[in-house]
């Protein structure tokens, strides 16, 4: 345990020096502020409290931003150590590879939690200040917070896996951006195109809900929007997935971090420095 925490501590110091903590906090806060300013318009029409609406907007933001920040923090984790030549030395220490990876994971997840808490905190604060009824939406905000951490954990694991697989930071950076684009942006568009082509056939009723829930980012969105009962504030594909029970989405977002980190560990085990 001490060895894991030793790695976490060092990773945290490195992230602090490299301004990664500052960058991710500023990014989350900035986007949250813009969103809560823009998202204040539909409140009256929906009759929902302001924080619940903010949570719905933040959900759409988090789907893009949390995976991005997690991937940007993790792509260098193993490839960078290989390139600098620091990995071969640390692997001769009495430390298991799993412990090294877990140490990095804890540090990066803590940084992500700080950034997410700062962003959501600011957004919640502006909501509460302008609407005294907004505290009703607090459970939704907390739910959004911990599910964002789980989403981040999934993408940290994916990032480590890509980092170990590609062995070079440049290649790893390209791969994570490509993956982000595919999983977060193109995946939904692809499903949408398939639904249109299918025109209410077997795909739409049989495979589509599972494909949607199989993507950690979509599962995250479905879960938060379904639970916050502010689904009407969200447009797009998720509305079509109303039939999916939120429990399935919850299972998906809880299981994905385990799958992703296990895959990362399995890939890292095969790396020869």
């Amino acid at each position, binding site marked *: 345990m*001490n*060895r894991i*925490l*030793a*790695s976490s*501590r*060092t990773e945290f*110091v*490195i992230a602090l*020096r*490299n301004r990664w903590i500052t960058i991710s906090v500023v990014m989350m806060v900035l986007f949250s502020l813009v969103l809560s300013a823009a998202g204040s318009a539909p409140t009256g029409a929906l009759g929902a409290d302001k924080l619940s609406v903010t949570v719905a907007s933040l959900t759409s933001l988090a789907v893009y931003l949390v995976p991005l920040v997690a991937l940007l923090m993790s792509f260098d984790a193993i490839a960078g150590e290989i390139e*600098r*030549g*620091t990995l*071969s*030395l*640390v*692997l*001769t*220490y*009495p*430390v298991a590879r799993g412990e090294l990876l877990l140490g990095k994971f804890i540090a990066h997840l803590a940084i992500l939690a700080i950034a997410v808490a700062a962003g959501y905190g600011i957004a919640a604060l502006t909501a509460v200040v302008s609407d005294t009824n907004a505290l009703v939406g607090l459970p939704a905000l907390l739910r959004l917070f911990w599910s964002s951490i789980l989403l981040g954990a999934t993408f940290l694991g994916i990032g480590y896996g890509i980092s170990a697989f590609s062995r070079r930071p440049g290649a790893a950076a390209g791969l994570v951006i490509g993956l982000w684009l595919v999983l977060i942006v193109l995946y939904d568009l692809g499903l949408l195109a398939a639904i249109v082509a299918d025109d209410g056939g077997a795909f739409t009723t049989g495979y589509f809900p599972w494909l949607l829930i199989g993507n950690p980012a979509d599962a995250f969105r479905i879960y938060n929007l379904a639970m916050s009962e502010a689904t009407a504030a969200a447009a797009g594909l998720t509305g079509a997935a109303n039939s999916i029970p939120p429990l399935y989405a919850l299972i998906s977002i809880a299981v994905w971090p385990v799958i992703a980190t296990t895959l990362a560990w399995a890939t890292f085990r095969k790396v*020869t*420095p």
Partner: protein
Amino acid sequence: MCLTLSQVTKRYDDRTVLDAVSFDVNAGERVALLGHNGAGKSTLMKIILGLIPANEGTVSVLGHAPGSIIAKTGTAYLPENAAFHPALTGQEQLCHYLRLRGEPTKHATPLLERVGLGPAAKRRIGTYSKGMRQRVGLAQALIGKPRLLVLDEPTSGLDPVSRREFYVILDELAAQGTAILLSSHALTEVEARTDRIVILSSGVMVANDTLANLRRRASLPIRLQVSATTGNADEVASKLSGDRRNGVMVDLVCNSEEKLARLGDISALGSLVEDVDVIPPSLEDIYSHFSKGGGA
């Protein structure tokens, strides 16, 4: 026995990088691993450290398999061109390594002072010179009194004074019973600093002996350099049937059995000779003799 290698063979595809290499390193022994670039030195070290597996043969590190927790706990490694995260200070980096070995972090300062990095401890490693990074590497290798020390080109990038200090530290460790295996290109510096020399040539171990024994086995010629008194170089050269090198110097070459007889010839010349130097074959000569297959 701290390190035992038996018939260690490593192949990449159909290329044999190490071919049945066998040798031991005892406690307190300093063994130099010599060889050209690509002779298999670094590969051998990685196998000893458990970073890569051997295809055949067995390796025993402190009585355990390489890469096992006990082997790793007792072994320290200094990689070639030791690298660290540039954003960390020397102090932070060393504290990190101390924590990984379960040692108290208060040892960081004395360790850094021991390798001469005391004043730079609070500076980021990104600002260090190559020699300073190498010292951080040495400091981390000294953590927890290792029983086996594996050093890959440890003095590359160090200035002559630092090299001397480095070998003083190694001698102290060896005196305390640490087994040391170090690879080097700088043959002259390992000459006086190691107990035994292992020479690898294209993955084959061509020599494993003390320097004195290697000299004897190679039986390379000895050079006698005779300084003639002024104006007598030609006479000295003709009487000793040697080659005149310049105005005063005459070179003679003989094998070790003839050496005393030749020295007798020289002293018989009396006042014609001012001085004589005996130059034994250098480690470079011995090294190229064995690495060309002379000892096989």
